């Protein structure tokens, strides 16, 4: 079973990398960019075939390693 996990910074957590990208887009002439926030994207292949069990496994992985829930949110999607 294939899943994707997106990890994004929580609202209010400063994202200097996103700000730098936003600045670069502006200086390249891309007008109208209100803001850029950078995140992380993971493709994970699991042996598990049961959707519910796979989701539980992925949630545990996110809570314990893939995301730092002090500063980040995560979303799980199945391909």
């Amino acid at each position: 079973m294939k899943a994707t996990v997106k990890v994004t910074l929580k609202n209010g957590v400063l994202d200097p990398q996103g700000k730098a990208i936003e600045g670069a887009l502006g200086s390249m002439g891309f007008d109208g960019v209100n803001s850029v926030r950078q995140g992380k994207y993971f493709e994970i292949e699991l042996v598990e075939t049961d959707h519910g069990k796979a989701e539980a496994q992925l949630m545990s992985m996110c809570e314990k390693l893939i995301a730092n829930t002090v500063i980040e949110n995560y979303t799980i999607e199945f391909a």
Partner: protein
Amino acid sequence: MKSAIIHFPGINREHDMFMALENITGFSPHLVWHTQTTLPDVDLVVVPGGFSYGDYLRCGAIAARSPIMSDIKTKTLKGLKVLGVCNGFQIITEAGLLPGALVRNAGLKFVCRNVDLVVENNTTWITSKMRKGDVIPCPVAHGEGNYICDAETLKRLEGEGRIVFRYAKGQNPNGAMNDIAGICNDAGNVIGMMPHPENMIEPLHGSTACRPLFESLLAA
């Protein structure tokens, strides 16, 4: 003062810390590889600086899940003293031994220079030989030292005297909240700091200003 220094792949300040502990406390620390599951019998564990696992995923994230960390966590609950410096601070914070998180420097640049630290709490086991309000120069060398936590945690840290060191006014190198350079846990036995006191203890370092930190360990 029996101590152990935890060695992770990518750590590079373990020998600086070894020399500092050995020279000032008179005891040679154990060097403990991260795959070990049990600590030797020690009073103090130091998690040194460097770039464990190349900062992959998040700084300190992978090292924080190493086998040796379980034993450190268990013994921390029984009063074991733990000091995390730089990447070590990031590692023990990722491991949940300290609240909050260390994120990318606000200015995006890796900062490597001396800054002045203000001793905010001189009742800890690394500051007992200092006075409250002392200003000591100390090197920093990090790209992700920007300490953040939620408003409630910050209020607790401030209210409970758990901010051990602050960057002197106007010298915050990374954008850390309230100029925080080092904090301790609620029991006081776990301390994390971004600056490198082990690199300011010999005349050749340019100053011996951070020796009192290691002398405090001896008195602890």
